[in-house]
């Protein structure tokens, strides 16, 4: 009986992961497809990987996407970490107010968020540009960062920190040695999450970008009508495999990491 249940559980999990990863496998297969149209298999080929590196438009979009993700995640992480530290010292109701507002971009629909940004930028006479997209990305990244750090901060035992101060540590020293290490995992996961969210966003970028600025998402959306360029599949495959390999490396040494954390 137990074996059957075990098997069923495994089977179920495989099914779900099949659902999640079937499109990804499809895209990877398509990137090796010799024929240009996605419906026909024309044989195995690496040519899209070669032409990818000659396609300036795609490389530019990749560059914009990465810069945008990195900058927005970084700024959001810094702002968010500071906010978490400050919020702890605030009165309960003001903290709660701030937290409820923080939730808005995460819960609000992308389309309303994107549109509200567009209306704001046009309303205050700010020309759409890379800056406006960056502002929008930072804003929708912030809740993810804050929500990753807050729980870690709650678990901190403030007595240790105060003890350190009593023993003559400067506040900044005590912060670096005691609080920061404890919330670091939260900061890191907040950063990674923000980075991923920014990378995956289409709707908000769609409404806040100016001509000539394309992220991979907006580039793909314009390509949808006329057929996606196979180079795009090749690029996605490279990105995906890179992340996968990185994750495997990190997770193959979990024991080491756990001890120190």
């Amino acid at each position, binding site marked *: 009986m137990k074996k059957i249940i075990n098997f069923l559980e495994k089977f179920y999990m495989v099914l779900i992961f099949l659902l999640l990863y079937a499109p990804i496998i499809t895209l990877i297969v398509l990137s090796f497809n010799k024929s240009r*149209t*996605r*419906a*026909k298999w024309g044989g195995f080929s690496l040519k899209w990987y070669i032409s990818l590196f000659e396609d300036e*438009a795609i490389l530019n979009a990749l*560059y914009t996407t*990465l*810069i945008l993700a*990195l*900058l927005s995640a*970084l700024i959001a992480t810094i702002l968010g970490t500071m906010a978490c530290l400050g919020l702890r010292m605030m009165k309960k109701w003001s903290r709660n107010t701030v937290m409820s507002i923080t939730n808005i971009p995460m819960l609000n629909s992308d389309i309303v968020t994107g549109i509200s940004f*567009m209306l704001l*930028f*046009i309303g205050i006479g700010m*020309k*759409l540009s890379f800056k406006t997209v960056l502002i929008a990305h930072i804003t929708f990244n912030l809740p993810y960062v804050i929500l990753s750090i807050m729980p870690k901060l709650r678990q901190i035992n403030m007595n240790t920190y105060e003890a350190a101060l009593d023993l003559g540590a400067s506040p900044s020293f005590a912060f670096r040695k005691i609080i920061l*290490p404890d919330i*670091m995992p939260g900061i*890191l996961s907040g*950063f990674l999450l923000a980075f991923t969210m920014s990378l995956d966003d289409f709707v908000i970028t769609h409404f806040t970008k*100016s*001509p*000539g600025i394309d992220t991979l998402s907006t580039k793909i959306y*314009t*390509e*949808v*009508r*006329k*057929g996606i360029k196979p180079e795009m599949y090749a690029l996605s495959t490279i990105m995906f495999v890179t992340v996968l390999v990185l994750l495997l490396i990190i997770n193959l040494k979990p024991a*080491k*990491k756990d001890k*120190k*954390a």
Partner: protein
Amino acid sequence: MRRRLTGMVLASALAITTIFGGCKGSGSAGENGQIVVYNWGEYIDPDVIDMFEEETGIKVVYEEFTTNEDMYPKVSSGAAAYDVVCPSDYMVQKMIEEGLLEKLNYDNIPNIANIDKDYLESAKQFDPDNEYCVPYCWGTVGILYNKTMVEEPIDSWDVLWDEQYKGEILMQKSVRDAFAVALKKLGYSLNSKDDAELEAAKQELIEQKPLVQAYVIDEVRDKMINNEAAIGVIYSGEAIYTQRENSDLEYVVPKEGSNVWIDGWVIPKNCSNKEGAEAFINFMCDPEIALMNFEYITYSTPNKAARELIEDEDIKNSKVAFPDKDVLDRCETFNYLGEEYDEIYNNLWKEVMSK
């Protein structure tokens, strides 16, 4: 381990900001400024842009749209400044009437001489004195069908309402194109402002909806090539390309008549580099360049000099790219119908879509 990770993140962030700073420098204008071009998807040979940049030293920021209706609010809202845009006839008219366009200085566009007088003449329907718009491409709207998937040759819009092709039909998604099909099927003008006619056309479109596999814009091209559907409504310019990829496909302009359209270059009022924009338009009218574009996008060119340069006799005399006069005689150009009727069309279309 942990400290190293933070170090890595910070270091990479630092490196990136330096690159970013550098990129901004190189990303800014070319030696002679820059222009922002707003064009249809895949509507130019990318090499042409490089050649233009090299020849003039003007940097091109290139952006694409999918329908006239998508393009219009972006230009009219002024959220971004475009220097050259390529709308279709009725949209040009609308933009002229709303004062969104700048008059062209033809001293900067001597290559206009290469454009066939006939097309400048028909452009007068929406640009009465040829002051605002230089024709870029033109064509008809018709039916593309797969010879192996239909019973007999097709010559009428009626086939799009034929039960036996249920799920085999691809319709156009933009308002004017969809209504043009229904209005023409009923024998009305595609610029109809008659409420009864429009109501009848709406009913036709609602009736047709269950038979339609999908409402598409440019996706029709790939779907037809991949044998996903038997019949599709398509622009003539796509026909040559699709036939090259799939020889079972045939293009026809239905006997009830259809739409003949012209897309042309215009310069919006809030442009930031008018001379650059005119230089670009002039470059596009160069015979060699027009030929390159024609061969890449396969949309008919109004450039007489370029057409004479076409080497492939089949294409040069193609009835699809350059249809006979009797075909064109039964076709109509779209007119701008005014704000009121724009909204009526939009609302009727929404009713169709929500059924």
